[in-house]
């Protein structure tokens, strides 16, 4: 029967889709583990730098450091971190939608974009935004030098006066099931108050100013590194959950089709028996 054959074929197709999604889920889980280890290892360094900077900044004249001085924000820049690849649920859609509304609020003409990850570049590049820089194809071999390279590029553009205010929009890793879109004020440097408090009276060598001058770029590098790690972990977590859901859906679909298949088979057999019986009865009469 044609119907039986069709159903059998569909079951086969879904079976192989299920295998693919399950494999993708396992790969994402492994990558997530690595990303979490990276995040764990970056934490002590980031925490200390943040703590010391926090301790120093109240005593420093902000206007003597270009990266600390507030300027009237005429040109704004947004760094948007997305993934290179899809199949990770609403990971990219959510951040792109939110980024777009933030940029709209700031004024599209006064905004320059730096896209990290191919998805963001494709999205904003097509829609006539001013994308001044983009990075892609590095997520697989992500390392600290990527972060320093990006931080340095942004800083030099900022110092040349290309823009006066830099925000980073990225997916923050909350837990495996949750990502939160976060907006962070990258430049000029402002610190939140949640850093560890350092109340030691330090001696500074060569001088307080020199230490700040060398500390600020270090801080920007590690912050960029943190954004990349957070986004990477969030991406893998999103992919893992959505592939898990896809695998489950495929399983449900297979169950349903199998039921349908059995019913169709049973119906076919019944019809055949009916034909035989009625044929035999016709002969008797």
């Amino acid at each position, binding site marked *: 029967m044609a119907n039986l054959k069709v159903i059998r074929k569909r079951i086969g197709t879904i079976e192989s889709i299920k295998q693919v999604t399950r494999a993708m889920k396992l790969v994402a889980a492994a990558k997530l583990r690595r990303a979490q280890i990276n995040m764990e290892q970056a934490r002590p*360094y980031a925490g*200390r730098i943040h703590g010391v900077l926090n301790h120093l900044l109240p005593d420093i004249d902000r206007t003597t450091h270009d990266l600390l001085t507030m300027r009237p924000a005429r040109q704004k820049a947004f760094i948007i971190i997305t993934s290179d690849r899809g199949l990770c649920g609403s990971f990219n859609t959510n951040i792109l939608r939110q980024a777009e509304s933030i940029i709209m609020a700031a004024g599209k003409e006064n905004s320059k974009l730096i896209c990290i990850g191919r998805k963001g570049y494709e999205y904003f590049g097509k829609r006539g935004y001013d994308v001044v820089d983009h990075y892609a194809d590095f997520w697989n071999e992500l390392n600290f030098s990527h972060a320093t390279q990006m931080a*340095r590029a942004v800083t030099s553009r900022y110092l040349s006066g290309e823009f006066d205010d830099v925000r980073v929009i990225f997916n923050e890793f909350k837990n495996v099931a949750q990502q939160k879109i976060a907006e962070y004020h990258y430049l000029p440097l402002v610190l939140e108050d949640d850093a560890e408090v350092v109340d*030691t009276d*330090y001696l500074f*060598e*060569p001088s307080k100013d020199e230490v700040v001058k060398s*500390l600020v770029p270090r801080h920007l590098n590690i912050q960029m590194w943190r954004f990349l790690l957070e986004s990477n972990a969030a991406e893998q977590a999103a992919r893992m959950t959505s592939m898990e859901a896809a695998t489950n859906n495929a399983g449900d679909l297979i169950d349903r089709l199998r039921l349908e298949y059995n019913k169709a088979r049973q119906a076919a057999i019944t019809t055949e028996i009916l034909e035989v019986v009625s044929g035999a009865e016709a002969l008797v009469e």
Partner: protein
Amino acid sequence: MAGQFHLEIITPTKVYDEGEVDYVRAPGADGAFGILAGHTESIMALAIGEIKVVKGSVEKTYASAKGFAEITKNGVQLLVESAEPKGGIDLNRAQKAYDRAKEHLNRKKDEMEDELRALRALERSMNRLKVAEKK
């Protein structure tokens, strides 16, 4: 003996916990300096260079990039953007980075930013090679 203190070398990707040590020499921005137990609490900017750790009769060396040293009553933390123990330096990679930076410098003289970057890369790779080859 002046006693020992706790030393950690912290990078963005790894923490080297050295435990209790006797002496550290670090590459300060204004020249190398040594730290013994009981040092004044201070924060010092570090340049690219070599960190030497002395623990009893054992000596260890690291090739390190920029960062700073934080000295407190509880111990010393060296926060640097990269640190590689002497035996763990990838000579091949350092040599390649050295050659690349050299070539870059010879070719491009026009762009300031590029030149600065190449210079810094050159400095880092030279430091790795120097530390690795030292006895």
